[in-house]
């Protein structure tokens, strides 16, 4: 919203926000090389490459750790490419690594934006490299149209997890009561999917009433204000709060705390950030869903690596192995401590050969 106000006074200047943000931290950013390379001895093995947005958010930092762990397990060279939110840089870096390795590489990429996937896949096919994409790609770009180089695309559906969290709440309040819900940015696909899951759970439980649904734009600040207003409007009618991500869920907990009700009203989030898992252990949050970026970073490479080294032939795999939804980990009070110990306090243990272990169905495009 701030963009609207400023741009009215200054034309398009504010559009450069991201660019300037980069320039602002140039001093710091330049300390990090764009390509962090780790040289090993195995030059004949394909180099494994992760292309991600940045190393400054916990999600992609964990993704990178998973990639490094997989590379170590097979003794391959490991390269991390960072787009810093810049699509051109992301594509150019991938082309550079294709040229450097002569196509003897496997790329696991979280494209900065959906359209980026096409030039990346085309460049990889031309060079003979193998590629796995995650989260973003155009709906009409399919792995089976680029056999065998485009091995797979992995995404996660928000519907079952939005529903699972709503079910957790409904169970916690004994199947009866009023729920308020905090949604993400209205046009975001994950926000739409998670809300759909919530609605499915509510439809199956007629005794639970959705008192209100507000859009808090994934923001903790907005979630805090909305929850405060709800506490006035509905007071004790609120028996549970559903939030589409952890930031908003934790803000709702803080609003409840200021009202002396933290821990008494169950709240759920989604994303599985560390603070949320800790809050579940403390009994202030009822649940969240972890997407397991460690798995994404390592398994994306493993799938591509096994295809490249002849472990399986991508063109002979069924379509639900080529474009599939991965599995999120549902965290509640029952498993929060175990999850924390295994995934946050320590390096997770993974079987990198179990490449189809988390397939939960072919991706549906509407």
């Amino acid at each position, binding site marked *: *919203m*701030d963009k*609207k*106000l*400023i741009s009215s*006074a*200054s034309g398009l*200047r*504010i559009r450069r*926000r991201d660019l*300037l*943000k980069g*320039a*602002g*931290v140039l001093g*710091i950013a330049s300390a990090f090389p764009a390509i962090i390379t780790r040289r090993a001895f195995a030059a004949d093995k394909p180099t494994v490459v992760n292309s991600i947005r*940045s*190393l*400054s*958010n*916990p*999600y*992609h*930092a964990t993704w990178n750790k998973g990639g490094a762990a997989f590379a170590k397990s097979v003794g391959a060279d490991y390269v991390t490419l960072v787009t810093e939110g810049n699509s051109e840089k992301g594509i150019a870096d991938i082309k550079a690594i294709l040229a450097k390795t002569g196509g003897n590489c496997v790329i696991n990429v979280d494209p900065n934006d959906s359209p980026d996937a096409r030039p990346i896949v085309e460049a990889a096919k031309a060079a003979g490299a193998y590629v796995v994409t995650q989260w973003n790609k155009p709906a009409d770009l399919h792995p089976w149209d680029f056999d065998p180089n485009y091995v797979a695309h992995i995404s996660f559906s928000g519907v079952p997890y939005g529903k699972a969290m709503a079910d957790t709440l409904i169970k916690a309040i004994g199947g009866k009561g009023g729920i308020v819900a905090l*949604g993400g940015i*209205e046009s975001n696909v994950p926000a739409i999917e998670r809300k759909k899951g919530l609605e499915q759970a509510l439809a199956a439980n007629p005794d639970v009433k959705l008192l*209100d*649904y*507000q*859009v808090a*734009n994934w*923001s*903790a*600040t*907005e979630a*805090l*204000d*909305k929850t*405060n*207003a*709800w*506490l*006035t*409007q509905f*007071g004790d009618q609120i028996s549970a709060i559903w939030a589409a991500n952890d*930031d908003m869920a*934790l*803000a709702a907990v*803080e609003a409840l*705390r*200021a009202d002396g009700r933290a821990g008494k009203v169950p709240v759920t989030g989604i994303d599985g*950030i*560390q*603070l949320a898992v*800790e809050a579940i252990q403390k009994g202030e949050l009822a649940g969240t869903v972890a997407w397991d970026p460690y798995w994404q970073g390592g398994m994306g490479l493993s799938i591509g690596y096994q295809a490249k080294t002849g472990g399986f032939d991508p063109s002979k795999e069924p379509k639900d192995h080529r474009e599939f939804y991965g599995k999120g980990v549902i965290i509640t009070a029952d498993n929060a401590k175990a999850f924390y110990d295994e995934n946050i306090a320590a390096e997770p243990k993974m079987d990198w050969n179990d490449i189809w272990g988390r397939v939960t169905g072919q991706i549906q495009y509407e």
Partner: protein
Amino acid sequence: MTIETSIHPGPAARPATRRRWRIASWAPLIVLVLLCGIITLINPNFLTFGNLVRISQAAMIPLVLGMGATFIILMGSIDLSVEGGLTLSAVILSMLVINGANENAFGLLGVLLVLIVGAGVGFANGVIHVRLKIPSFMVTLGMWFVGVGAANALLGGMAIRINDPLIRGLAIERFLGFPWGVWVALLCLAIALVIQNYTRLGRYIYALGGGEELAALSGIPVGRVRILTFTLAGVFYAVGGVLAAAQLGLGNAQIGTGRLFTTITAVVVGGTALSGGQGSVLQTLVGVLIVVVLSNGMVLMGVPPSVQIGVQGLMIIAAVALSIDRKRMRIVK
């Protein structure tokens, strides 16, 4: 944005316009009262003490930020570094007081250090703006990203939980029914009022906003006043950062997102002119309350989420339209 071109007599000596009785300058207050009335009619819960406390909680941060921004806007400049200063302050605070990531426990000293950091950010704004003669718009835009970027670099994208009872107490502990943070915000308002009305700096700020060339000719150290004002604003943003960290119980690089919009909106809706020279911190208080009551009220009245942003926009235009003094304007840009 409107630019007032006429230089009325003697702005450097006395802010005559501020004292002049105009119905327009009461428009924001009338809007606020009307707004409260309408919301109460639709949902009587609005006027309960509990909701009053919640509105004050929602208003405390915009109010403190608005104090800093008011001075800058009175001077005829603009400060876009609100989110940068706030985010950096909140993040540094979360690392200095008792927290979930390291062993620090500086307590009040940590808060003081954060205020100094805030002053430093503001001082940098002022010096770059005055000495390098770069428009405040660009300097503070840059500083916004520098602040958020530095916070990001400090945390590496993580969030730090604050466990210090002193800081958390600002949001949770209460005095006379209101959280301590609200009293801190009121203290800031009092300080800002004193600075505005009873100090040389306050008078000079009005003089600069009214007509900077005249002010310079009458011997006011224009550059120094500007630097000092930006520094002062930086301290207010740091206080805002402390309150934001206290309220959410954590510091992360996204904590300031959306604050700039609320702040500038509140200042302008309160009737302070973007062209400088007209307005006051008390008007900003009214502006903050309008913005906060409106967003609280829209939830209470059940306005659909997709319509809320639009209503807020209309409200801004309406409030500014009511409070503008058209007689004294020749050119509107």
